[in-house]
């Protein structure tokens, strides 16, 4: 008898998980409404009436939205395990791979509309000057969503309870949020923090999207960011597949938690490279200065006509 197809199983699970997420008001609030709220808040506080700042802020908002995949459906897997839901799936001919891949794919499907709305709001409502490089944005959103979903899956794999998952996620999320340039421009931090941030995956997403929305960076110019995140996805996915547990009572040994560090290896390598020979920090500074010096948006009272 033919065995079941992992790709078909992944797609079947993805469709159901998207449907379940759409029925969850909390999920919709955090994935759609909250990033838009942040967008308007950032524009009001930091926008300085400059269209150039809108593009810069869009980079941050897209980063926050994509990084949200870190929480999303990966955390749901822990909830499913604790509730005994995964046990029922274990009886069916569906492996850990499709369960995990469906988290990544469903997260991506849910991120795309949010990202699209954010870009359209910036362009049509907030009068962003250009579209940025949409190809580069598309690539980074795609690989970024996959990477942060996969990082979430690792945390889900090495934690034993929902509570433990929430605490660890919160710690990592706080670092990602404040030290990557996603919420506070990296250029305003002391140099040692800027250098340390080059070891964080979030920095590659944040700066990559920032370059793509402001500098019109081409896909080739964000190659380092894309590569770092791609490697991160592959390593994180394989580790979480190896550590995947179906049973609520199956506990992961403390030693296994060190596997999280293995997922960081690509970023440690890129961090070392960027600190020693890279130009990223200089680019970040140049970009920030250019935007800070950009003229303000003309207001009605200033219009000579």
């Amino acid at each position, binding site marked *: 008898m033919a065995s*079941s197809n992992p790709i078909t199983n992944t797609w079947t699970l993805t469709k159901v998980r998207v449907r379940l997420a759409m029925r969850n008001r909390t999920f919709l609030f955090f994935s759609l409404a909250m990033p838009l709220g942040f967008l308007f808040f950032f524009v009001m506080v930091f926008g300085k009436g400059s269209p150039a700042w809108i593009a810069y802020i869009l980079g941050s908002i897209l980063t926050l939205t994509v990084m949200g995949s870190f929480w999303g459906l990966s955390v749901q897997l822990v909830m499913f395990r604790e509730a005994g839901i995964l046990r029922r799936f274990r009886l069916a001919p569906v492996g850990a791979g499709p369960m995990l891949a469906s988290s990544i794919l469903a997260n991506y499907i849910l991120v795309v509309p949010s990202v699209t709305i954010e870009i359209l709001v910036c362009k049509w409502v907030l009068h962003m000057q250009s579209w940025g490089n949409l190809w580069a944005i598309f690539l980074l959103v795609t690989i970024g969503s996959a990477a942060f979903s996969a990082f979430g899956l690792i945390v889900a794999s090495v934690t034993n309870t929902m509570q433990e998952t929430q605490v660890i996620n919160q710690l990592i999320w706080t670092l990602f949020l404040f030290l990557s340039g996603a919420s506070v421009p990296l250029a305003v931090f002391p140099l040692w923090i800027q250098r340390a941030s080059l070891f964080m995956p979030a920095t590659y997403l944040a700066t990559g999207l920032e370059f793509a929305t402001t500098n019109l960076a081409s896909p080739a110019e964000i190659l380092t960011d894309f590569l770092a995140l791609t490697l991160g996805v592959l390593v994180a996915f394989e580790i979480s597949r190896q550590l995947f547990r179906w049973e609520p009572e199956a506990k992961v040994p403390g030693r296994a938690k060190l596997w999280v560090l293995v997922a960081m290896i690509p970023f440690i390598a890129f961090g070392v490279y960027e600190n020693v020979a890279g130009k990223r920090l200089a680019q970040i500074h140049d970009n920030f200065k250019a935007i800070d010096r950009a003229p303000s948006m003309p207001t009605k009272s200033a219009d000579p006509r």
Partner: protein
Amino acid sequence: MAEPIIQVTGLYKSYGAVQAVRGLSFAVEEGEVFGLLGPNGAGKTSTVEILEGMRTPDGGTARVCGLDPERSGSAFKQKIGAVLQSTALPDKLKVKEAIELFANFYTNRANTDALLKRFQLEEKRDAFYNQLSGGQKQRLALAMALVNNPQVVFLDEPTAGLDPQVRREIYDIIEELKRDKKTVLITTHYIEEAERLCDRVAIVDQGRIIATGSPRELKHKSAGTTRIEVRLAKPDGNGSLATLDGVADCREFEGTYVLHSSRAPQTIVALVKHLESESNELQSLEMFSPSLEDVFIELTGRRLRD
């Protein structure tokens, strides 16, 4: 003779210091409804979960449909269906979606609408899982166990915690499986369930099988005896109930005296006389024809619900 569809030999399973399964062996023929009957903690669920490929045995072998459940992966899972002791699904998953979701994992798929009809879930097809009653959830679990037209169906305590009406509905469904010549392995601690549904029963206690046979064969071991359960106003301190006319065996369980008698009328007359002479009173008296409960009591000295 064809190889048994389920073959278990010398199975062992421990959880830390607790030995849940201690050298269990049995075989189930194709088309048979086989029951593992025993109290909670007897090792029934551990055994069935090893057979479903969900647990690794510490020793012994298990084969289902000629395959090793633990190592045969997808090919094995295509052949079996199962209802776990407790099934959980996402709250916001609809009934029809749940059946379709699980059906999609299999190469041999039953018709979703036919399953909804068969399990009386048509009206609830668009209801969320968290809106279903306990009985409806269990019917859905049974429907999901049959989405792949399995060769072997495992039912782990399928009626535990359900009210009698729902339990009878589930019995009807299992009897339908029996008519369809499905091989069913059912675990239960309900005597009525084992007697009504099973072709053969293995009585399990403390991880071991203590008796195997058809309910009729097993009851023959208590043949000729009637179970008389009495409650007295004052306890029978000197064990004199065991010496009454016709009494073959007498045990006390939480204030109830369980007597097995080969001549029930004489025993009752002797009991009444004895109580009068002891200035004791009868609070209640019930008589039962031989059941698997009696077999269990005879073999273990305990009741199934202990």
